[in-house]
């Protein structure tokens, strides 16, 4: 698999999160999932999207550690490369 840039991951994560409810404009790297009203079901769906598109398997314990959008993007980018 070719390398994925952090910007690509950021764009895809924001798109996915926006599909769960919040406005894309409100989603910043420092936004917490709590502020965005992103719950555990949303994070499960995000993990599935990430697995399908980047082959990165995020387990329940990985997701529990994540508090902000930026942390998720960093983890996905690191695992994908």
């Amino acid at each position: 698999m070719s390398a994925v840039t952090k910007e690509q991951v950021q764009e895809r994560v924001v798109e996915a999160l926006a599909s769960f409810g919040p406005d894309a404009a409100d989603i910043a790297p420092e936004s917490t999932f709590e502020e965005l009203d992103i719950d555990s079901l949303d994070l499960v769906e995000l993990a599935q999207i990430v697995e399908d598109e980047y082959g990165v398997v995020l387990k329940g314990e990985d997701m529990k550690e994540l508090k902000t959008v930026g942390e998720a993007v960093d983890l996905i980018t690191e695992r994908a490369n």
Partner: protein
Amino acid sequence: MSELGSAPAWPPAGCALVTGGSRGIGAAIARALAQEGWPVAVNYNGSAQAAAEVVSAIEAAGGRAVALQGDVADPQVPELVFAQAEERLGVPVLALVNNAGITRDNLAPSLTDEEWDAVIATNLTGAFRFTRRALKGMMRARVGRIVNIASVSALRANPGQANYAAAKAGLVQFTRTVAVEVARRGVTVNAVAPGFIATDMTSELIGPDLLAAIPARRAGNVEEVAACVRFLVSRQASYVTGAVLTVDGGLGA
């Protein structure tokens, strides 16, 4: 209400998958969903010829169907069956009917580990794995219908079926829990609990004593169960989720 005004096409751009769809209740469900316009994947385990006949009947009536072999108790099978259904029918699975079921009746003191495990593996664990796989696509599509075929034995004691009752009661509460988890994704999850339905699986059970215990004084037929599944899979059932619909001639009332 805008949601009613802009009702999406139905069936949505997906197919229906019926496990254990070659005979009995499953075959009737497969035919009923095909009549509703769903392309249908008919999963079967041993009965290749019966599955082929269900497919032929659906095609003869102008529908689309494929027969897919796989033992639902095998952990590898859900992925294989979903991949084949989606490849051969060209659309994702947006309706799943977990119908495959077996009985290994025995009174609890003599129930063997093998009898217990086989019934739990097929009737409960198989339904869980198929549901988990189905939810991936349904959640993303924001639409889906899952119907689990439970049994009156889940709700009312039937001596000799401790294993079957435990599996089916587990399936009922699994249904309710998953329904609540995914409700806001437009995916409904319901159970149908048939009573005594005349099929190969029940032919030895249904005698005069049993019929006397059924308020309707007769066994049900497979079309009566399929009609309930057809409703739960319909667009009109979009607000019905976590429900258990008994189809039992009043036996559990």
